[in-house]
């Protein structure tokens, strides 16, 4: 073993743990030491739970010693975005509104991670209620990008991106309503999958917008995302949006073979409707060449303009978020951060007709993406407009100002993952989205994994 423990992937560590060549206690202690040394620079965690982590690790070690190995997450240290309820552990949603909130019960996906034998390291930074940030007037500072600590991590799963990129957790749960898993994956150079809507339970996760919220993992590789998704995917009757569909074996799909795969490139999203910067365009061009070199067919496709998807998704997200927070925002506006408060007040000017028309438009747009995915196995497009900007330069209303490249697939509900597809001249990562048919999460993971194997981007780590 040559890599330091905090740079092992789950896929590398799990067999060592299974063979008792690596103790979950040793692994967890390495991550806790790493957090203690590095997190003061990154602010990825809002709450570290060392006692819980060591107890989880000890239990995992004892179970494995007794011959009861549960699977690839057994003894694996993970972090949880602080909008997920964790029984007996502070869950703030990164807001003064919930500064003292300690849930009695775990979110369903947290239960499932526990059942898989994982080790909980603590709670991770987010934007306030997964919406307001990056902000400096909240109970905790915003997370910082491990590739350059002056840079934005993306949001709202900002701590999840920082922790997985910085080697502070082997995987992290995030959530994605307009891109909050995939944007941190893009800016932080990790993999993150927004599964199909309904694939992972939202029960016990603070909602931003009910009809757009997706829960999913971020990790260093697509393969590790597959391993975590395996543990948290499944029907939950307590989530009204949950899908009662069988869960395939995601890891079994990762065969590395893309020969004959049909890839549709939605170039006009990032080079037409709006324009990504040169780093992003160059990375996309190189990625398409890589795909062609694997034997896949690569063709440009056309969907509705990106701005149509953005208008539809934003009208739904802002309306639902406003409905959720309106009473508390009116009663105690001072408890919210300024960015959350101002974005949400402005959202109050949307009308009921705007919301319903957006929902009707959503059906059209989702049908359009469905149709395209009968002709192509996956679609690919860029994840972000540029490498990470300076943290202090992110505009208060950036969500309103320019369409998000990630939001189309929250609107359509299709599985979409971001993998790192290159670096800027200054060493900052950028990412590419891979989108599959509804409940085709395994295909998305297969393409992401094959792409990572065909390139050398996973060999680069931030110097922190």
């Amino acid at each position: 073993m040559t890599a330091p423990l905090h740079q092992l992937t789950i896929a590398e560590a799990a067999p060592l743990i299974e063979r008792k060549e690596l103790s979950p206690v040793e692994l967890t202690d390495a991550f806790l030491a790493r957090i203690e040394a590095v997190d003061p620079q990154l602010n990825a965690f809002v709450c570290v739970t060392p006692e819980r982590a060591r107890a989880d690790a000890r239990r995992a070690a004892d179970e494995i010693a007794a011959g009861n190995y549960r699977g690839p997450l057994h003894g694996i240290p993970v972090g949880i975005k602080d909008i997920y309820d964790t029984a007996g552990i502070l869950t703030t949603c990164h807001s003064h509104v919930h500064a003292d909130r300690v849930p009695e019960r775990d979110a369903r996906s947290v239960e499932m991670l526990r059942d898989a034998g994982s080790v909980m390291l603590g709670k991770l930074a987010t934007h306030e209620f997964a919406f307001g940030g990056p902000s400096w007037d909240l109970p905790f500072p915003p997370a910082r990008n491990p590739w350059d600590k002056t840079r934005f991590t993306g949001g709202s799963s900002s701590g999840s991106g920082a922790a997985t990129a910085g080697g502070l957790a082997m995987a992290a749960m995030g959530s994605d309503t307009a891109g909050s898993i995939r944007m941190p994956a893009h800016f932080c150079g990790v993999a993150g999958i927004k599964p199909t809507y309904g694939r992972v339970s939202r029960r016990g996760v603070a909602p931003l917008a009910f009809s757009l919220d997706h829960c999913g993992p971020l990790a260093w590789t697509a393969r590790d995302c597959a391993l975590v998704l395996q543990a948290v995917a499944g029907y939950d009757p307590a989530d009204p949006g949950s899908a009662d569909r069988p869960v395939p074996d995601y890891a079994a799909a990762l065969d590395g073979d893309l020969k004959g795969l049909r890839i549709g490139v939605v170039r006009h999203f990032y080079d037409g409707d709006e324009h990504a910067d040169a780093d992003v365009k160059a990375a996309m061009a190189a990625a398409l060449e890589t795909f062609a070199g694997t034997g896949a067919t690569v063709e440009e496709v056309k969907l509705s303009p990106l701005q149509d998807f953005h208008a539809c998704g934003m009208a739904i997200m802002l309306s639902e978020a406003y409905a959720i927070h309106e009473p508390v925002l009116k009663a105690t506006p001072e408890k919210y951060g300024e960015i959350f408060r101002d974005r949400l007040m402005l959202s109050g000017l949307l009308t009921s007709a705007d919301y319903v028309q957006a929902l009707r438009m959503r059906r059209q747009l989702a049908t359009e993406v469905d149709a395209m995915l009968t002709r192509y196995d996956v679609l690919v497009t860029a994840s972000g407009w540029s490498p990470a900007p300076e943290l202090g330069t992110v505009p208060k209303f950036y969500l309103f100002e320019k369409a998000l490249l990630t939001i189309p697939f929250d609107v359509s509900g299709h599985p979409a993952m971001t993998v790192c597809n290159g670096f800027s001249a200054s060493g900052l990562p950028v990412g590419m989205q891979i989108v599959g048919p509804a409940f085709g999460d395994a295909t998305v993971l297969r393409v992401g994994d094959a792409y990572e194997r065909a390139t050398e981007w996973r060999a680069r780590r931030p110097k922190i």
Partner: protein
Amino acid sequence: MSDDTSGAAFEAFAVRIRALGFNPSEASLREMHAAMPHLEAMRARLRRSFAYADEPAHVFRPQGDDR
């Protein structure tokens, strides 16, 4: 646009926000007002020419007993 017209537009915007039941600071109001064209641009892109029977993309399934 003259300053007077801008001022009138800002006051009308402030009235709308206050009518929602909020009383933000002058600085916040000014920033929200500056962002209002972006919100209006999004609203303008929403499609509105649907047939009466075109359903929204919501799903509501009564939770009754199927037997």
